[in-house]
């Protein structure tokens, strides 16, 4: 499937489904090292995104879809994740410009812009046990896939796999940013909820692209 406005819509709808299915799981992760609201926040936000998509006229470009989603997340998620995902999608939209569809290089640029937006807002570095630990390997894997000549779907699939591995790799880390950092050493041995939701969202992007294509 071409990564057009239809794909972008399907991405967000698939993400909303994934977040809803994993609401309790994300809440459990956040309960262990945070305040138990990540699943609820993300579910509330993505449900609002879907409502927004349902209500509005079909946007013409993927950037328009992502921008609308960004604004909705920003005003419905709250907490740390709201501004971070909001900024990520806003930067992703800006990076896509008014292209009708995204080619592999544009996908890499989009993911990179999203990651950079999160860093700009949250100031986290790799290894701080945040969603950045899922985004950065995702961007790197996407870049590698794209330079190896993969199609847009395969680039997204590579990103999704790396994000998932990155999320798993947060398990042993001691948090240095976000709410989990208050726990100090006690944060080790638990997966970062934001990294886990990033993996879900990127898997949704790949799923919406219909696999390698």
């Amino acid at each position, binding site marked *: 499937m071409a990564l057009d406005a239809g794909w972008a819509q399907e991405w967000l709808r698939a993400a909303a489904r994934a977040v809803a299915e994993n609401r309790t799981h994300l809440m459990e992760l956040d309960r262990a090292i945070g*305040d*138990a609201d990540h699943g*609820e926040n993300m579910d509330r936000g993505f449900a609002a995104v879907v409502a927004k998509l349902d209500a509005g006229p079909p946007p013409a470009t993927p950037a328009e879809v992502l921008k609308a989603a960004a604004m909705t997340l920003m005003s419905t998620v709250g*907490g*740390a*994740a709201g501004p971070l995902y909001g900024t990520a999608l806003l930067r992703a939209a800006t990076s896509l410009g008014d292209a009708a569809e995204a080619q592999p290089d544009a996908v890499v640029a989009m993911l990179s812009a999203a990651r950079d937006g999160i860093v700009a807002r*949250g100031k986290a570095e790799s290894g701080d046990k945040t969603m950045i630990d899922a985004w950065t390997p995702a961007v790197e894997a996407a870049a590698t896939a794209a330079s190896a000549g993969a199609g847009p779907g395969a680039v997204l699939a590579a990103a999704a796999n790396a994000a998932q591995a990155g999320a798993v790799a947060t398990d042993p880390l001691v948090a240095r940013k976000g709410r989990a950092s*208050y*726990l100090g050493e006690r944060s080790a041995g638990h997966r970062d909820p934001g990294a886990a939701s990033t993996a879900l969202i990127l898997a949704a992007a790949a799923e919406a692209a219909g696999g390698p294509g």
Partner: protein
Amino acid sequence: MKKLINDPKAVVNESVEGFGLAHADLVTVHTDPLFVVRKDAPVQGKVGLVSGGGSGHEPLHAGYVGRGMLDAAVPGAVFTSPTPDQILPATTAVNGGAGVLHIVKNYTGDVLNFETAAELAAAEGVEVRSVLVNDDVAVEDSLYTAGRRGVGGTVFVERIAGAAAERGDDLEAVTAVAQRVIDNVRSMGAALAPSTVPHAGVPSFDLAEDEIEIGIGIHGEPGRHRIAMENADGITTRLLEPITADLNLGSGDRVLLMVNGMGGSPASELYIVYRKAVALLKERGVTVERSLVGNYITALEMEGASLTVLKLDDEMITLWDSPVSTAALRWGV
């Protein structure tokens, strides 16, 4: 989970609506987006004070809206910071031409959402300053982390900065006194039993019958470490030591002391803690000039208490004593 609620998703809206009905003489509640402003907002020529954060800490923040304290409170979902689209209209609604101070508790979510709202407000021509409350000594303060959390000290910042704004101080002066309170206030808390976030439905941590959490925050997070149950005097000592050390309190110092209940502990227990805290401070030659004992910044129905100590100067005392008229703090009027 047993709670006096209807729909977990409606908890904040219904509760704030009830609050508005009960205190219609003091506040106006705006819904969609949700925020609470002082009845007579905007007060022309007065610096506007806005605070906010996740719900579940009642009476913070809406309970502190009124004369001599906050102009607006912005309630997020339970334990979740509010969003810029709530904070922005609250900010403009209380701008009486003298600018607005955002009092932000130091949590990534609150910081980011208030930051965005402040940018948007500035774009609309409102002068906005921010202070970051970070008084929790249970958390290490480091450049490489999110830093210390904002907890009980927030109540003192809101009150004392609110008093300064009420007497006509300009934005710079109000910001300065708020920062002076922040620089001189420290807190630490302990939990005997966790709370349950309505939308989560399970307690935010599990604690054995003989364990307590030391260094908890106000969001049902687990604390810094877990110890075997101790008596009230022991726990009080454990909480107060790091505070007095960090503030370097010594002979001749005067303080404002708050023994705060986390929501589920009876008042009688808070007074037992207060009794010991006063004795410990006295041993060091520190005088408790003013105090608060009660539920002032809570974590739903969590059982436990926190101590907050502010090193006072004369001006802070004057400001503290000036009239305040809010749902949760009221004197002099």
